[in-house]
């Protein structure tokens, strides 16, 4: 049973890792370019595990941004994870011990969140599944950062390989899979529109992902309203 759950978690992590490869690689290149040592670049991926946040942090660091500004921007970028984390609780509660569930939530990226939520809709949550999923995704992230930090000077374009579309393709697939109720579709549409409009009229929110938070708040609220009518 435990072995099966571990294997399933590993299998489900595969598309996530594939999507992380070009992104982690790019981070490795960028981190070295911003003055981080090989060890520091890899440590950052091990300790932070946040795509956009890490890109923004090394970018701001290189530009001479203050520590306070870097931390606050990172908090803003990662705020949406508080919503994600809270929404996994009904599935984890009484199935995984509280401390373990909280500890494993460190690995709750956009992709890990969507894949695990999809799993929980059909199967009960288990610690072994979540451990395998999170650890594998995290290792993929660390490994690709390491590769980028080492090989950065040799490879010029991952675009040629279509790898820049890995994450968008992942979002598309997860969005389709997660739509179960009619009201889910309205929530997603309202959120899409909000994210674009907020991002368009307040361009800084495109970079710090605040438009995604605004979109989530409005989309989910509309979902509830339509669902109750």
């Amino acid at each position, binding site marked *: 049973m435990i072995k099966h759950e571990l294997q399933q978690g590993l299998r489900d992590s595969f*598309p996530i890792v594939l*999507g992380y490869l070009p992104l982690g690689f790019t981070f490795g290149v960028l981190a070295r370019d911003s*003055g981080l040592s090989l060890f*520091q670049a890899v440590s950052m991926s091990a*300790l*932070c595990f*946040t795509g956009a*946040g890490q890109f923004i*942090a090394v970018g701001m660091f290189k530009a001479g941004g203050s520590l306070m500004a*870097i*931390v*606050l921007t*990172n*908090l803003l970028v*990662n705020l949406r*994870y508080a*919503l*994600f*984390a*809270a929404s996994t*609780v*009904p599935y984890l509660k009484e199935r995984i011990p*509280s401390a373990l569930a909280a*500890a494993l*939530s*460190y690995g709750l990226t956009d992709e890990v*969140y969507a894949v695990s939520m999809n799993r929980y809709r059909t199967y009960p949550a288990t610690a072994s599944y979540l451990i395998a999923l999170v650890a594998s995704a995290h290792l993929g992230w660390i490994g690709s950062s390491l590769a980028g930090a080492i090989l950065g000077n040799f490879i010029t374009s991952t*675009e*040629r*390989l*279509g*790898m820049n*579309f*890995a994450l*968008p*393709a992942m*979002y*598309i*697939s997860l*969005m*389709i*899979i997660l739509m179960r109720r009619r*009201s889910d579709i309205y929530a*997603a549409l*309202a*959120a*899409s529109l*909000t*994210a*674009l409009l907020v991002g*368009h009229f307040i361009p800084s929110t*495109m*970079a710090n992902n605040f*438009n*995604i938070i605004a*979109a989530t708040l409005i*989309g*989910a609220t509309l*979902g509830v309203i339509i*669902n109750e009518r």
Partner: protein
Amino acid sequence: MNADIWLMIFGAALASLAPRIIPVAIFTRRKMPPWLEKWLSFVAPAVLGALTAVSILAPGGVINLGRDNLYIWAFLPTFAAGLITKSIFLTLLVGIASMAALFHFMG
């Protein structure tokens, strides 16, 4: 310089891990009100809708609805593959292959 980098790394780590860990630590111990649970059930579709829209229609951080936005062209076969296969892996393959082909012929 070196110490600055480590401070930056630890600061960013704290800012990225706390928002994920704290809500789970609190709400797995306390009872969550039913209205909140219902609202949270719409977070996943909403956030994926938003992430998809932004990554396709504003890939460079600025909205681009022009014909030169390859992400829109790659979206079409990828979306179809997602609807038909419902498989993350196959959808990913179709997406990456479409983008590579588009880059080759139009980019």
